[in-house]
């Protein structure tokens, strides 16, 4: 057994190393796109079956968004991004409870040793994915900030003249704000990556140590952790968006 911090490359395609996490991302995207296409064709004003489930989830998310933005128009603006992040991260996280995690794969000779390259690996256990999401979330915050406040006012949050009221203190606070924007990227990406990677390692190790019944509670725990992390990611994004659009 080898635990790798980085996702394993399954095969090369035109010099582009397809990793198992990228494969999972593609599978998840395909799933989401298919369901959306299929679903959009049969939306009815009187919901039935699957539409009820989706509506309940989306309405709960929308209400949550409303409760944070306290502004119907703004929550409409933020909702698609936040909901997409939530759904995508949730599905990425839940890949780790799919049977065959870390066990189905191909054996490759790696550093002179024959090791297993698994096909299934949670996309969130890849820093590329979490970093991409973090970059998108933070950039979206800048975008919405500039588009609602205007570039001058938004820049005024970070670049404060040292000759105005709180003098040098204000300038220093502005600098800290800039640093915090970058630290958000790191905290976003490493929080999700750390949680899900740890969960994967835990599940793999439990499975190898005691294959029957004992991993079950951990599986339930990971379902819960996956949901919580997705919610945390989405809600933090939302609160950053909200904060970016507020004037000081």
């Amino acid at each position: 057994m080898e635990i790798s911090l980085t996702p394993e490359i399954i095969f090369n395609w035109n010099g582009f190393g397809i990793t198992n996490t990228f494969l999972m991302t593609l599978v998840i995207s395909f799933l989401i796109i298919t369901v959306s296409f299929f679903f959009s064709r049969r939306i009815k004003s009187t919901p039935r079956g699957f539409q009820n489930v989706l509506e309940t989830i989306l309405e709960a998310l929308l209400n949550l968004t409303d409760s944070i933005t306290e502004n119907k128009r703004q929550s409409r603006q933020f909702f698609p991004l936040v909901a997409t992040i939530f759904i995508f991260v949730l599905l990425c996280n839940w890949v780790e409870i799919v049977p065959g995690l870390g066990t189905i794969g191909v054996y490759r000779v790696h550093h002179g040793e024959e090791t297993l390259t698994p096909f299934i690996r949670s996309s969130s256990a890849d820093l590329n994915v979490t970093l991409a999401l973090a970059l998108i979330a933070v950039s979206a915050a800048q975008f919405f900030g500039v588009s609602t406040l205007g570039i001058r006012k938004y820049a005024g949050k970070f670049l404060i003249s040292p000759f105005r009221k709180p003098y040098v203190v204000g300038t220093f606070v502005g600098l800290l704000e800039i640093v915090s924007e970058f630290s958000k990227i790191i905290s976003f990406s490493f929080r999700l990556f750390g949680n899900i990677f740890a969960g994967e390692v835990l599940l793999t190790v439990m499975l190898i140590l005691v294959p029957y019944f004992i991993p079950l509670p951990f599986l339930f725990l990971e379902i819960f952790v996956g949901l919580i992390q997705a919610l945390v990611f989405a809600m933090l994004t939302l609160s950053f968006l909200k904060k970016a659009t507020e004037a000081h």
Partner: protein
Amino acid sequence: MDLLNNLGINGKLLLAQIINFFVLFYVLKRFAFSPILKVLEERRKKIERGLADAEAAEKKLQEIEKKEKKILLKARKEADQIIRKSEAQAIKNGEIIITESRKQAEKIIIDAKKELAEEKRKMLSDVKQEVADLILLATEKAIGEKINENKDKEIIKKVVNNL
């Protein structure tokens, strides 16, 4: 760069993930969120409208009930009045009829009495005439000759009348 490599961060993969996310974002927004939000909004509006309608209907119903009660009360009052009026009228009418009939009866009795008296008087005079004639005839027969008719008659009449 070495650190990034060790963490498995790869520019190409990162870009691919970002693009993938945007594709997902677009698809979900276009095919899931917008229609669902629209449906939800429509349903919310419909429910609100329905509730408002129900409230209005309830209000109207109450108003109608109030009106109905008022009208019923008024009708009952009027009916009472009419009955009372007609009762009074009937009593009055009855009294009038009774007094009139009594009057009429009295009149009839008086008339009858008058007539009776007249008849009696007439009969009496008739009887007297007859008696006078009879006496005259009898006296004539008894005496056997005719006396002065006119004088006799007068005398007899006087006698008969004095009887």
